[in-house]
């Protein structure tokens, strides 16, 4: 018998019981929908984490200065005039000597100052670093250039600004070549730098109109020559003096497999140099591993939930089909008497199951695609719709329902036609 006639017959039969068919589909709809929605939320979260970690670079080791409460001084109640902590130039020198397979080191001072251009002013992050920083952060230049090793060498007062800052501070002007002040020191803008997401945009000229980078980047040498290492911060009337030589140090290792060894060396050097642990070591590679592990766990949990919901949907189908079969016993008897083979009866009921599950699956996919969009639109949580999520949810749900449909269909086919005909 031709399949399209089976489909026609099945649709006709299903349309007899619209409410029932709809309720049966609901199980599949919810199953598929929840699986797709969960997967896309999970995928979105995963992507975001991956992106963040990737930006830190899997070959990098990040060392940050951390302020620790100074117990021996603070215990007596008197506040030290200058709080000195964190990474030092000595650390930098020692690390570059003792860490194996080191390709580059990027020292960073992270500061916060008022910046001004003409009468516009705002407070923003100032990053004093070396030219290598651009590479380590994987940032793209939008216009102009990053500062060079020559700028470092001579301590030239140049700066590179983030796209967002360019928009905010230089609206109506071309920032390149302009002079801006950073905490009343004059710097010349030589370039505009984007953040990583921007590299995906291809439109050439007005690229800097997008992007959220609001920092100013200046050569470390220039800053140190001007200001030294004492950082004065005025908060709530009372000033605190902080002496931090480096806020951050990024070590770049040649190969990923050498990172672990380098981390050990780094720990050893820093432990030797510091009495207190006024630093923290962040290894993106480890974070990636952790993220993968978390992801795996998440997948298992998600998979279980999905499996349960799909099985529940399948049981729903089986339940309804069993009811349908027993309700239509007489019809089965008639069809058998008029020449239907067992196979024809099995096919008839399986086709009904298949149509229920496919339509339920399709509706579920539609809702499963809409829900993440609504989530993204209303909560700013990133979601990603992936084809595998669709394919998995759909095929699993259809397979499950067909498997659960086999039993009722077989039961229908194995009925004795004489008994079935007599059935009231």
């Amino acid at each position: 018998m031709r399949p399209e006639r089976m489909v026609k017959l099945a649709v006709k039969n299903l349309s007899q019981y619209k409410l029932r068919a709809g309720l049966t589909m609901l199980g599949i709809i919810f199953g598929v929908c929840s699986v797709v929605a969960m997967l896309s939320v999970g995928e979105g979260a995963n992507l975001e984490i991956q992106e963040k970690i990737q930006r830190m670079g899997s070959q990098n080791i990040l060392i940050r200065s951390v302020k620790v409460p100074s117990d021996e001084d603070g215990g007596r109640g008197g506040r030290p005039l200058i709080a000195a902590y964190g990474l030092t130039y000595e650390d930098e020198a020692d690390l570059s000597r003792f860490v194996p397979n080191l390709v580059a080191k990027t020292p960073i001072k992270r500061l916060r100052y008022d910046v001004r251009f003409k009468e516009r002013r705002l407070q923003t992050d100032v990053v004093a670093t070396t030219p290598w920083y651009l590479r380590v952060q994987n940032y793209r230049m939008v216009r102009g250039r990053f500062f060079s090793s020559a700028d470092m060498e001579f301590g030239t007062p140049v700066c590179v600004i983030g796209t967002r800052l360019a928009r905010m501070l230089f609206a109506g002007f071309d920032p390149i070549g302009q002079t801006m002040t950073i905490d009343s020191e004059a710097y010349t803008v030589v370039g505009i730098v984007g953040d990583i997401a921007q590299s995906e945009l291809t439109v050439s000229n007005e690229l800097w109109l997008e992007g959220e980078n609001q920092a100013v980047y200046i050569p470390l040498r220039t800053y140190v020559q001007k200001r030294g290492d004492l950082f004065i911060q005025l908060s709530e009337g009372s000033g605190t003096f902080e002496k931090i030589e480096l806020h951050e140090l990024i070590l770049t290792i040649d190969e990923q497999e050498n990172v672990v060894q380098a981390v050990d060396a780094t720990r050893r050097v820093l432990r030797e140099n510091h009495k207190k642990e006024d630093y923290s070591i962040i290894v993106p590679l480890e974070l990636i591993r952790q993220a993968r592990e978390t992801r795996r766990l998440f997948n298992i949990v998600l998979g279980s939930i999905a499996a349960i919901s799909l099985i529940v949907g399948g049981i729903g189908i089986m339940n309804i089909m069993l009811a349908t079969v027993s309700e239509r016993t007489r019809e089965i008897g008639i069809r058998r008497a008029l020449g239907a083979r067992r196979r024809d009866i099995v096919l008839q009921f399986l086709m009904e199951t298949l149509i229920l599950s496919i339509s339920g699956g399709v509706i579920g996919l539609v809702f499963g695609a809409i829900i993440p969009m609504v989530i993204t639109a209303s909560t700013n949580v990133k979601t990603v719709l992936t084809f595998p999520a669709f394919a998995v949810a759909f095929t699993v749900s259809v397979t499950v329902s067909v498997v659960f449909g086999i039993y009722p269909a077989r039961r229908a086919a194995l009925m004795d036609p004489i008994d079935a005909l007599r059935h009231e």
Partner: protein
Amino acid sequence: MSEPIVELKSAVKEYVNGSLRVTALRGIDLRIDRGEYAVIMGASGSGKSTLLNLLGCLDHLTSGNYLLGGEDISNLTDDELSEIRSRRLGFIFQSYNLIPQLNVLENIEVPLFYQGIPESAARVTAERLAKRMGLSSRLRHKPMELSGGQQQRVAIARSLVCDPLLMLADEPTGNLDSKTGHEILELIDELHAEGKTIVMVTHDDDIAHRAQRVVRFMDGEIISNVWNGEAKA
């Protein structure tokens, strides 16, 4: 008149009902020739329904042979029996047994559906038969919207759709008032006149008079076999 359509040879049918063994047919021999109109009579439990189910290929013999149109079908598989039912047999039931969600034409087409005959060809045949049964104005109606007599006409049309070798009728007038029943019987007479081979189960003597031959059953055995009112061993 000598070509046998149905030949039963020492046909035995036993049912196992729990630990109880019930013998419904005790080795009967029966021959029905082409064009015959035979009525089977007997009290309930006499074995006449069992006989009809066997003739209709809905059941297997416990022992003995059943030849339909010269072909021994005692040992055919379920699928082969299904095929015979769809191609060679026509059923008319007491309770019509139409499929409620299908309309008149679709009900008539069901046996053709299982023969794999294309929809358009089936539709032509179904329309022709429906018209012949006087159902022209009811082609798209569902069984629920028809009277009992009309429903039985649909069932007769359905039984004719495969041009059957043998027509089996199980108390076809049992659910009808006498006037409608009479119309149905006349239709069956008409079919007989056209040369159809008909076997009908009934317990109504008036109906039995119309037939050419009456076979009486009691306790799973044939107790009389009468042609035109005159006995013949």
